[in-house]
Structure formats: C-alpha cells, structure tokens
C-alpha cells in the first residue's frame, strides 16, 4: 500500500466529503446530518472543479485575447453550476421536511424518529 500522490485540492475535496459523511454517520441531530450532507456536496463540487483544472491556464472566458488553448476545461464548471443548484434544492427540501418533522415529533434526535420501522 502506497500513499496515493494527489494534489492538495483533491485532498481538500475528499476531506470535505469524508467529514460530511462522518457527520451523517455519527451525529444524532437531523439538522447536523443535513449540514453534513451539504458539506459533502460542496466537497463533490470542489472535486469536479479540481478535475477540470489545467495548470497555468485561465478561466474559459474567451474575451480579451485569451485563446481557446489557454483556457481550463469548461465542462466541469458547467456541471458544477448545475450541481450547486441541485444541492441547494435538496437542502431546502430536507430542511422543510425537518421542520414538519419537528412539528410532529418535537425532537430532531434520530433515535427518537423511529415510528416507521420493521
């Protein structure tokens, strides 16, 4: 087993993903879990952008004399735009579900939110 040689950006992205997942796995507060999910999504976005980055090249906006071969990969950026919006949509949905849940159960502790089981 050798330590994979990855860049700091990849490392940061993976760390965010894992920290987010850690929150989901360990924290008992629903909102905390949702924060974890949100952090995970940020991490994934960062990962995508890092994959599209090309050292020494500039943003893919081809004005002011930037030639096509000087730009970084635009596709991941387009994808991440989509992914961010999807992320906020999910967050909004989860939070409103959490609000409804709190209204009915009076708690946000996952161990007590167990009416549906078996």
């Amino acid at each position: 087993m050798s330590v994979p040689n990855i860049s700091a950006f990849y490392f940061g992205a993976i760390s965010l993903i894992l920290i987010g997942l850690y929150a989901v796995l360990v924290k008992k507060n629903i909102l905390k879990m949702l924060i974890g999910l949100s952090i995970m999504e940020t991490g994934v976005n960062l990962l995508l952008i890092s994959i599209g980055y090309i050292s020494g090249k500039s943003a893919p906006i081809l004005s002011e004399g930037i030639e096509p071969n000087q730009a970084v990969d635009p596709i991941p950026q387009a994808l991440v735009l989509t992914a961010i919006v999807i992320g906020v949509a999910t967050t909004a949905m989860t939070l409103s579900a959490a609000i409804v849940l709190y209204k009915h159960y009076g708690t946000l502790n996952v161990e007590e939110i167990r009416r549906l089981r078996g």
Partner: protein
Amino acid sequence: MNGQYASLLIALPLLGAFFVPLIKGLGKKAIKTYVLIITAIQTGIAAWVFQQVYSTGKPIIVMAGGWRPPIGINLYIGHFAALFVLIVAIASFLMAVFNFKAIDVEPIDKYAMLFLLLMLGATGMIATGDIFNLFVFMEITSITAYALTAYNKTGEAAEASLKYMILGGIGSSFFLIGVALIYGATGTLNMAQIAQLAGNIDPTVAQVGLALIVFGLAVEAELFPLNAWAPDAYQAAPHPITAMFSAFVVKAGLYAMARILYLMSSVGTWHNVLKLLVVMATLTVVVAEFSALRQRNVKRMIAYSSISQVGLIALAFALGTQAGVDAGVFQMINHAIIKALLFLGVGYVAVQLGGADIENFHGLGRKMPVTAFGITVGAMAAVGIPLFNIFWSKLRIILATVEAGYTWAAFLVLAASVVEAVYYFRLIHAIWFEGEGERISESIPLVAIVVALVILVVAIGIYPNYLWSVSQKAGSDIFNVAQYIKNVPLMGVGA
C-alpha cells in the same frame, strides 16, 4: 413526423407542470382533470414513439439544441426506452385517475406539479444518453419523490421522506464522484463515447468510478442493504405515488444501473462488480421477503414484496448474459403491471376503510369484491402462479440464473419465493374467508382500471409471446453495447 418530436416527451410534462400555477384558482377537480389530460397526451406521444421505434426497428436519437452527441446531450429512445416511456406514461395516466379518489390533502396544485415532474424525471432517466444528464434527471426524480413522500405532512411522512433524503443524498453525491472520475478519465460525458473509451481507462479509475456510480444508482434501485428507505417511503407516500414508485421510479434507477453497467463492460474488473451485484440482489430478495412475512400493514407488506421483485430484476440484470437481461426486462414490465394493480387496490381499500392494516382486509371480498378480486389476482400473479404473467418472467430469470452458474442464488431466491407465497396467501385468506362485511359501492373508473389490469395480467399469462419478443428486443438494446454505440451518431471529437 420527425423523430426529434420525441423531445415532446420531456417538453410536455414540463410545460404542463409550469402551467399549473396559472390554473391554481380553478379548484381541486379542475387541477386533477388537468393532470389527467396531460398524462393522456403524454401517453399518446409515448405510444407514437413506441410505434415508431418498433416499426422501424431503429432508435430515435433526439439531439437537444441540434448538437451531435458528444457535443450536445442526446436522448436515446431505443427499444427499451420506447417501451418503458410508454409504461411510465400509462402508469401515470392510471394513477392520475386514482388521484381523484386518493388525494385530498392540500395543496393540490403543488401535488399536480410534482406528479407531472415525477413522470418527467423517470422518462428522462430512461431516455437520456448522457451520464450527467442522467444525474440531473435522477435528481429530478428523487427530489420529486422526497417531496411527494412527505406530501401527506404527517409525522410519519416527514420521517420517511427525511430518511429517503439522507440516503438518497449520500447516494447521489457518490454517484457524482463516480461521474467526475469517469469524466476525468475519458473527457466526455456521452454514454456511447464512454462505452467506446471504457477499455482504455486506467483500471483503478474505472473500477472506482464504476463502483461509485453503481453504488449511487443502487440506492435508487433499492438494492440491499441500500434499500432501507424504501419500505418507509412506500408506506408513507400517498397511494398513487406509491404505485408510481414501484411501477417505474425504481425501474428507472435499475435501468440506469444496468445501462451503465453494460456500457462499461470492457472495464477489467467488470465481472467482480457483477458478482457483487448478484450477491446484493439475492440478499435483497431474501431479506425483503422475510421482512414481509409477518407484516401487519398490507401496504408495507406489498412494498417489501415490491423490493424483493426488484431484487429479482437486479439479479437478472447482474447475470451478464443476454438471457438474463431479456428476462429482467420482461420481469420489469410484468412487475410494473402487478404492482400498479396491487398498490391501486390496497390504496383504494385504505382510502375507503381508513388504513391499510390487515384487519381492514378481513372480509374485503364481501365489502369490495372487485377490488378484492384485483388484489387477489395481483397477489397470485406475484407469487408466480401459471396463467399469470410473472410466472413466465420468473421462470426465465431462474433459468438464466442457473445457466449463468449462480445456482446458489437461484436456491436462495426460490426459498424466498416460498415465503412470499405464504404471506400473499395469508392475505388472500383474510380477504375471502375471514370476517364479514357490508358491500361498499366501488368507484366505476377505478373498478374499470382494476379489471383492465387484471385482464392484462391474465392475457400476458396466457399469451406472453408478443411481450416476450418486445422484451427480447428491449433486452438486446441494453445488452448489445456495440449496437448502441453504432446507433448514436457520434461526432469524431477527440476519438
């Protein structure tokens, strides 16, 4: 007509959904009727597409924005997609009829929008030919599903929805990581081109990417042990939505999984992924059947049964043989019919008698004979009794499984089927031979749907030839990747 008009399949539900706020004030009935009309038109378009694809034998490639595939996003409406889009549309149409009885919770306008968008999401997932677009449609489907699961606004509904969201969120995040890896390795997002380039990818990247994508989709496709959200969501969702979940939402996930799996079949570690999936699918069947055994809530029981059947489909897809895929597609169709029938019947009973607990089913044969009959036929078909449709697909799947060398999987699956028989026949006994009751008048449209579905079940059971040939075509659409690549008019970019 130009094949590009198949894009109406996507445009129509969207337009329909966006139009709803404008007619919000017209009242519940108007909105429900509106949904019914939209789904009917969608069914018409889907039928036209189906007819086109099956008469010409060529897939329709919809190129969005007029860009050729690797540049633009394309929809690939091949044999499978044409078939399944039709099923999605029909199932939605039937459930739109059911909406009139089953949905009473406000706000109906939001429900109508979400309903149409759920249909859209599944259609898109099945039709798309681009891996990121698949992600987008998957999110459309699942976010709609989250919202609809919680739609009843009870505590249970919110609980089920939150569980679904958390698991689905993890799944989709990892799916996206997988997409990122595959993109990083190939530089393209088009499925056909990925399939072309799959053999050259660095094996570690390919393996991690494929595993993550399959993981993400398996959450949607309810494979054990990633399916823990499913029974709760099925139980808590409004009844028509449950039927839709089971009839096509899961199927869309399964299909996407199978599609990507076979596209990546030139990846070195592919067979290991298949083996893992076989194990997961078999366990899905076994655990779900056992969980259904002593279930008191009939809706939940049928939800477990649905999960197990989905596991059976996944097993068929994971075999990696043509026979398996054909059988899986066949089972998908049959299962969609059966589960639409069962959830419709059980939902209707729950609406009429106030809950889906087994006690309400005692004497159902006297209270609601037609519905009870429908449930009975559905149950018998699900067990795999001859003269009903599932018999053929189950037989096909078992034969394919043993042929592929997974005799142990066949053993376990069949053992689970014995359990399935037990709980279904307990239900039938409760319906017909226990309890008393007064006759309750049943709604004519719903009765008509139940009878139509029953006739369909029996007709396929007696004469499966047509559907089998259709499933074979659809199956080879998934299995035959070379043909898939050939069908997509790839532009020679980079390759």
